[in-house]
């Protein structure tokens, strides 16, 4: 059986989930800090902490799930990515740790400090940047294999227009997704001031987001033509749909209509683009070293992973629904009537 396709689909779904809820979280941190600096914090901080307090830890698990899963399903990725990602991986880890812990210190501790909020807000933008570097490396061309082991070509990476366009796309997407969600949340909370501020932010970030997407496409053509051709040749319709969803989302928020639907459109916009990107990249996880048809874990282990995964989902999905019903979809909680 083709366990590798089950594996990669599962992992891609989890990575997608992490990108969405991580983006909401990262962006919210930045907005909270920005609001504090511009003395608008009284407007949105309640709203943000009402959403973030119960979910931040769960967000982190999605990430852990992804990297444990990828090593589990494709042990070769531990070798190739592990050998090359020491520095970018460590940077991302340090940022993630600072952010996670200072978030807790800021929110659960006795006192609030601007410097803590700064650490929390600034890392929110740097983390997506450092993660996106890893996606860039996966594109291939920055790793060489010698008899001593595999090495990352730093200079090539730093000078690559493709790498930089991905970094900017990641940062702007974070702000876009986050403000999109918080607009919906503020609207649900009937928090007019916060709603106007966030809607404004959302509309501001929509334009550069769509422009930078084009840059990514163009530089991908320069960097990995096979991938580009595959994306444009076989999966153009997914990217086309993505643009359609984008237009609907922006239009809905611009005309202040159906905010829940608008956020679903944002989800679909990123979903179609992300799966289009992923599908067109296959069969390589890391071009040309990790080919999912060859690098998959042995059959017995793959089977047990799939079984455990299904059992795990039976446990997790109801729990997640409970969490969402208690916090995100509970109208009274969102409005701040329940603590």
């Amino acid at each position, binding site marked *: 059986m083709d366990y590798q396709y089950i594996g990669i689909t599962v992992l891609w779904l989890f990575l997608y989930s992490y990108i969405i809820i991580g983006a909401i979280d990262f962006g919210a941190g930045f907005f909270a800090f920005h609001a504090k600096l511009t003395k608008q914090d009284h407007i949105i901080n309640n709203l943000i902490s009402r959403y973030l307090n119960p979910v931040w*830890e769960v967000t982190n698990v999605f990430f852990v799930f992804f990297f444990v899963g990828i090593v589990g399903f494709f042990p070769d990725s531990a070798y190739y990515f592990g050998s090359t990602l020491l*520095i970018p991986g460590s940077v991302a880890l340090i940022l993630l740790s600072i952010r996670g*812990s200072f978030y807790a210190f800021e929110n*659960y501790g006795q006192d609030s400090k601007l410097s803590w909020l700064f650490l929390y807000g600034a890392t929110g933008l740097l983390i997506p940047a450092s993660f996106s570097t890893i996606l860039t490396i996966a594109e291939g061309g920055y790793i060489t294999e010698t008899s001593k082991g595999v090495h990352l070509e730093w200079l090539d990476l730093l000078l690559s227009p493709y790498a930089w366009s991905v970094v900017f796309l990641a940062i702007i997407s974070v702000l876009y997704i986050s403000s999109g969600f918080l607009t919906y949340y503020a609207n649900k909370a009937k928090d007019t001031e916060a709603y106007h501020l966030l809607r404004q932010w959302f509309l501001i970030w929509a334009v550069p987001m769509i422009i930078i997407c084009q840059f990514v496409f163009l530089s991908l053509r320069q960097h990995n033509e096979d991938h580009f051709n595959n994306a444009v040749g076989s999966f153009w319709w997914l990217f086309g749909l993505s643009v359609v969803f984008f237009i609907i989302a922006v239009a809905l928020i611009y005309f202040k209509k159906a905010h829940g639907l608008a956020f679903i459109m944002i989800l679909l916009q990123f979903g179609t683009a992300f799966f289009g990107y992923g599908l067109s990249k296959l069969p390589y996880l890391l071009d040309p070293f990790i080919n999912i048809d060859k690098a998959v874990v042995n059959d017995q282990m793959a089977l047990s992973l799939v079984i455990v995964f299904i059992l795990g989902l039976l446990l997790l999905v109801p729990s997640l629904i409970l969490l969402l019903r208690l916090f995100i979809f509970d109208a009274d909680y969102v409005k701040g009537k329940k603590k």
Partner: protein
Amino acid sequence: MDAVVISRLLTAMTLGFHIIFATIGVGIPLMFAIAEFIGIKKNNPMYIAMAKRWSKGYTITVAVGVVTGTIIGLQLSLLWPSFMQLGGQVIALPLFMETFAFFFEAIFLSIYLYTWDRFKGKWTHFLINLPVIIGGTFSAFFITSVNSFMNTPSGFDFINGKLMNIDPIAAMFNASFGVRAFHVISTAFMTAAFILASIAAYRLIKNKFIDDKEYHKKALKLTMTVGLIASLLAMLAGDLSAKFLHQEQPEKLAAMEWHFESESKADLVLFGLVDEDKQEVKGAIKIPGALSFLSDSNFNTEVKGLNEFKKDETPPLIIHYFFDLMVFFGVYCFVVSALFIALKWFKKWSQFSKPILYLAVLTGPLAMFAIEFGWFLAEMGRQPWILRGYLKVAQAATHADGLSLVFIAFAILYLILGISSSYVLIRMFSHSKATDDVNKIIDRKGEV
């Protein structure tokens, strides 16, 4: 320095820092569950306040636990890529299950922390404790399984440098899994209880808020009781571990006890100094026959000596001290808690007299040191192997550049996290009166 040494140091530093928070993370939920249970059962708001305060402090430690856990999860691949490529074929299952358990715990912990006043029935909120405890305990189980696999690999055939014919279940429930998981869980509960006991004892000594006396006395009684039970379990687990080592990892047992020649009626060696070349032990307290007895409950059992193993396949002799200290500190906690409980029946001495409180203050930190030393012993005790019998540590380390830089960066990170989390925790509680929290709970009840 060479890459292997730095990789080892970095892994040791990350794990050493993580286990402080991981141990607290596994143990404390049980403690606040017990407090909440008693609170509801006895209808006593003081215990509810206790559960609330403990869980509030827990949010800070769990945050650091989560981030350092994420670090070690990724560092395994970053520092030991060859090991993960090889072992990934087998340890994927428990690692994956650990993530599920962690996920489960995280969801319900979030719910627990934010729903104190959400439900009508008093027991509904209490029930949320159960998935939190189950999640935390199982995540400790599964991660211990991964580590046990590295100590006693099984469930595969080793063919041409690859692990083949894998049996995931046999690998997960490898020889050392059972005893080690038992030891890890019981000591986590023990340590968590003693840490909370230390805080209560410290508060009673300082006596800053006189109203709080009653509260801290109740807390000390509760934590000492749980600590006593858990330390009994931990000692039982420790005894099983010695018997297990005798069977499965005799080189670790021999190095732990500076036991060079195989013999029956083997002595147990406490502390002392060793001359490695002459194989002489000086200044140690020797208990005749005790090692044989510990290994197999029989003084005549022959215990394998270090000289029966290849020189380059035996662990460093320093692990002897870690073993001694771990046992010594563990026994200290047991004795203090037993004494505390026993004093209840003696009218002459109070459970809360100053000398007892001073002894109690030490239990938490010493229990935590015992955890650290126990892990030093376990991990250094399987040197030079990373996958015992199959892959040496030296072959598994990364060749990436910038290792020293990464090491320094993480050292600074842990320093900052350690200091700031302690600062936040101290600030959180030093000025807050437990009685105020109790009164808040009473007031709220009045409203309903």
